C-alpha cells in the first residue's frame, strides 16, 4: 500500500519536476564537419 501511494505521489510530482527537461527545445542539429549549428553552415 505504501509503495502504491508513494508511486502515485511521484507520478503527480513528475510533470512539475521534469517540466524543464520536457520543455527544453531540442538541441539544434550540428554539422559533423565544423561543429557549428547547421543553419549557419551553407553557401
Amino acid at each position, binding site marked *: 500500500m505504501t509503495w502504491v501511494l508513494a508511486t502515485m505521489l511521484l507520478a503527480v510530482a513528475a510533470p512539475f519536476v521534469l517540466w*524543464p*527537461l520536457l520543455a527544453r527545445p531540442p538541441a539544434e542539429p550540428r554539422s559533423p564537419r565544423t561543429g557549428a549549428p547547421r543553419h549557419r553552415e551553407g553557401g
Partner: protein
Amino acid sequence: MFLAELGSAFLLASFVLAVLSGVAGVVAGRGGDLTLARVARRAFYAAALGLVGASGTLLTALLSHDFVIAYVFEHSDRSLSLPLTAAAFYGGQEGSLLYWALLLALMGSVAVAAAAVSNPGTTAFANAVLAGIVGFFLLVMVFVASPFALLSGTPTDGLGLNPLLRDGGMLIHPPFQLAGYSAFGVPFAFAIAALLSGRDDAAWVAQTRRYALVAWGLQSAGLTLGMWWAYHVLGWGGYFGWDPVENAALMPWLATTAYIHSAQVQERRGTLRAWNFGLVIAAFLLSVLGTFVVRSGILPSVHTFAVSPLGTWFFGFLVASVAISGGALARRSGRLRSPQPVDASPSREGAFLLQNILLVALTAAVLWGTLLPLISGMTGRTLVVGAAYYERVSAPLLVAVLALLAVGPLLPWQRVRGGWLRLLRWPLAAAGVTLAGLVAAGVRQPGALVALPLVAAGLVTCLLEYGRVAVLARRLAGPLPLAAARVVARNRRRYGAYLAHVGILVVAAGLVGSHVWQQSRQVILLPGQSVTVGSHTLTYEGMAAQPAGDHSALVARLAMGDETLEPARLTYPSLGGQALTHVAIRSSPFEDVYVVLAGADGGAAAFTVYVNPLVTWIWVGGALLILGVLLGNLVRPEVERERVPAGLGATVPAR
C-alpha cells in the same frame, strides 16, 4: 491505518525526490546545466511539499488519537490538551526528525529559490547539499525510525507525554531550538557550494550571512526559551547547567556569533576568507554533533527522553559531513589565502578578530568539557567536568568579550588616528562611575566589580551610536521621533546590531547578578513557621491535595507579605508515579523569589527558597537580542548599504 500508509508514502516519495534533487544538483553544478539545475530545484521543492504532507498526516493522526501508530501511542493520550497533543509532533524522536527535515526543506527551498535568480551555478551545489541533508533525515525516517510505524493492535489510550514536557514551554522552546539546529544547514550548504563551484569570493559571504543570521536568531530564541523553561520547570534555581545538550546548543551559536562579525571583515577588507568558511562549517558540524550527543545518550544529560539507537546514524552522518566539508576546504585552501593579513593595531577589524579568537576559544573549551567523558572513557577512566570548570574557563573570556563590546564599535576601520582615551572617554567614564557606585554600595564580589562596569561601558557605547541617530534626525524635516525612525529604518542593519548588543549586555548583567548575588536556604517547616531569605520572609500556611485530570498535586501555601506563593509537586499515576516539581516564582525587575517544594511528610514540608537577582534581565535581554536581529537583517533584506535619507547628501560614517 490509512494515515500511517499515507504518511509513509509521503516520506518515501520525498526521499526519492531528495535523492533525485541531490544527484541532479551535483551534475548540474559540475556541468553548468541550468535546465538540470531547475529540475534539481523543483525536485527539492516537491520533496519539501512531501514533508509538509507527512507532517500534516502525523498531526492529523495525533489529533484524531490514531493509537495504532506507535508514535501517537507513545507520545500522547486522550487526557492531553489540544495544544500539547499537537506539540507531541516534535516531542519524540521520530517526530522531531520529521520536524527538523520539514523546516530545513522549507528554509532551504526559500534560500535556493532566492539565490537561483542571481547565481544559478553555485545554487545547484547548495541545492545538492541541502538535498543531501534532508535526504539523510528521510533515509532515517523511511528505513530506521519511522514516525508512522504501526502497532500490532489498536490500544484504547496512549502512554502520554513525558511530564517534564507537559508545560507551556513545550509549545515554544523545542520548535525554536530544532528550527535553529536545522537552519544551520542553509549557510553550510551555501558555503560548501561556494567551495565546490570555486566562487569563493566575497559574494558568498553576502549570500550566507543572512541565512547565518536566521539560524543565529532562531538558536538565540531556542537558547533563551530553553533557559526560561529550565528555570521555570526543573526547579533547581538556575537556568543553565552546562548539561551536554545545553552545551551542544550553545556551541554552534558561539561559532555563528563569531561568523556574523568576521563576515563583516571579509566584506570590508577581503580578509579572513578561509576562517569564515571554517566558522560556517564548524557551526553546522557542531549542530550535528549536538544532535548525535542528544540522540545517542552517550553522555549523561537531562534530555534523556530523546535517547535512541539513532546515535550511530548521526555519527556516520557527522563523519561524512566532516569528510565532505574538510575535503572541499582543503581543495580550495590555496585560493583562500587572504591577500593581506588583518592589521594587529587597534582597529575595528582587529577587535572583530580578537572577538573571534575569544569566541572560538570558548567554543573549544565547551567542546572539550562536553566530550571529555567520552574521550577519557576510551582510556578506561571516565572524567567528568562540572559547572565549576565551565565557569572558570568562560568567565575571563566573557569579560574580555564584554570589554570588546564597549570598545570595538567605537574603533574605526583600519587604524585609530588620534588619542585612544578621547575615543573611549564616555564608556570609560561610565565604567568608572559604575565601579565607584558598586564599591560605595558595599559590593565586594570581584565578578560583579569587573563585569558590571564593563556592561555599563558597553551600554554607553550603544547609546552613543543611538545618539548619532538624534544628530542625523535633527537635520531632517518633520517631527524628531519620526525623523529618527527614518534614520534607523534606513540604517537598520547597523542599529539592529546595536540593539542586539544592548540585548547581550542586559543578558550579561542578568547572568552576573543572578550568579554573584543568588541566596538560597533549604528548610523544613511546620505550618505557622517562617523562613527568611534575603529581605523576604515566607510563612508556611499549610498543604492541600488537589486532584487534576491526569495527575494529583500537593500544593503548599506560603505567605510573603500580601502575596501567597504556591509551590507544588505533581504525581502522574498513569506514568508509573513520576513526580514533577511545580516551582512558585514571584518575579520583579530586580529579583525573583523562587520556591521549590522538595517534599512533604505528615504536617512538615521541605522547601528550597532562592532569591535570584536580575534573572528577569536575561529574558528581557534575550528578547532585545532577537528584536535586534529582526530589525536589522530580516525585515528588509534589500537594504544593505548604510545611508541616510536622500537629499541629506551624507552617509552615516562607518567608523
